[in-house]
């Protein structure tokens, strides 16, 4: 690693093979993805990722942590996210994918209200232009 903060308090990376076998989320739990970011150094860098998250189905909110260089995504209950989708978010945003983990969190678990959460919009208008307006403004 080039950077001392690489040794963050993130859980050890989970091999892709075991991630694929992660127990699917059901309607009593939701999936949470926690990823170590690489190449993200300022608030504006997170927008590059936000653009990609906006297009990820089922994600309801994202947590950006600059100091930890960490991204956390919460998905709708029942939505199962694949490791490939998570990797593509980073690749399409122009960054090198980092290690990540996928957890199943019970819906009844205490809400995570730490700073840094942003709600993700998923406009449903039939008009592409209206959807574009809704997602940006």
């Amino acid at each position, binding site marked *: *690693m*080039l*950077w001392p*903060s*690489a040794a*963050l308090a993130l859980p050890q990376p989970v091999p892709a093979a075991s991630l694929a076998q992660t127990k699917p989320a059901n309607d009593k739990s939701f999936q949470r993805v926690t990823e*170590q*970011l*690489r*190449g*993200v*150094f*300022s*608030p*504006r*860098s*997170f*927008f*590059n*990722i*936000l*653009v*990609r998250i*906006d*297009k990820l189905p089922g994600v309801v909110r994202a*947590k*950006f*942590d*600059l*100091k*930890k*260089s960490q991204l956390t995504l919460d998905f709708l209950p029942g939505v199962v996210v694949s490791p490939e989708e998570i990797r*593509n978010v980073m*690749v*399409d*945003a*122009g*960054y*090198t994918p*980092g290690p990540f983990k996928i957890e199943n969190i019970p819906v009844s678990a205490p809400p995570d209200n*730490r*700073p*840094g959460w*942003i709600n993700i919009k998923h406009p449903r208008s039939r008009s*592409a232009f209206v959807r*574009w307006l809704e*997602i*940006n403004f």
Partner: protein
Amino acid sequence: MRRNWLPLLLLILAAGFTPSTGFASPATFVTALPVALDQILARMDANTSMAASELEYAQFPVSVALGATSSLALFVTFQASLTSLKQNGQISTSSGMNDTLVFGRYTLYKKDWPNGTLRLAPLAGAYLPSGSNTLSNSSGLLAGPLQTGTGTLDPYVGLTFGANTARYGAASDLTYRWNPAAAHGVSPGDILRADGEVERRLLPVHLPAEGLPKELWFVLETNLIKNRSGKLDGRPDPNSGGFTWNGAATLQLPTLRWELGMGVLLPIVQQFNGTGAIRESKGLITFFEFYLSAPSLSGVRRKL
């Protein structure tokens, strides 16, 4: 192959042009701005002369960048300007659209790590002749600084480099603009330009443990510009071309969705060929940029 020439390029950039920069947010050049796939970046600049001098100006460039793929960004820069020149007791003015810059930038090399990145990207494009090089008044052709274009399609190539961490950043570019001579009017010579930028986060002094803080950055920039001698109505003009070195200092407020910057531009060295040189005074630079999500065509573009 890459290992052979990459260190040499980095050395050239580091040695030749004061500081170099990553894909940060320089105020005086746009080649290093970061753009992701399906992202639109829009930036509006307002650059004006601050002190009364023989040459006074107000320039309003608008740059729009689109992430066509995760590595390829497309840029277009329109510029409107208003310029006033006082010579021999006479005041001449000009205004209008300047030449339009269109270029693509491809990220050839990147190294990412937590809270840091290093990028190297060549770029290529052209200045489209949307300005005019034949502006005149009752006395004849206006002087070069009052012309708004070159009258020709001008190829433009360059290389940009950037390295950033959560506390420090640096960026640079090296660009060359070929200005073919036009048969009529004022034709400036080719332009070799090297820009450099270093930046430091002032606030917050220590990043909070969670979330995205509001930040304030201090940015120093330098621009080295070498203009070759140009032509006047197709004939060599000995009173054109030269070398200028500018410095700039700005304060910048970056957020998740927009960034605001303001500062001053200081001419440090102005050496011109021939006689009748027109010197610039210090200027005020302001910019505002914001980021949008573009309509997605990523299914097609990811294959590129």
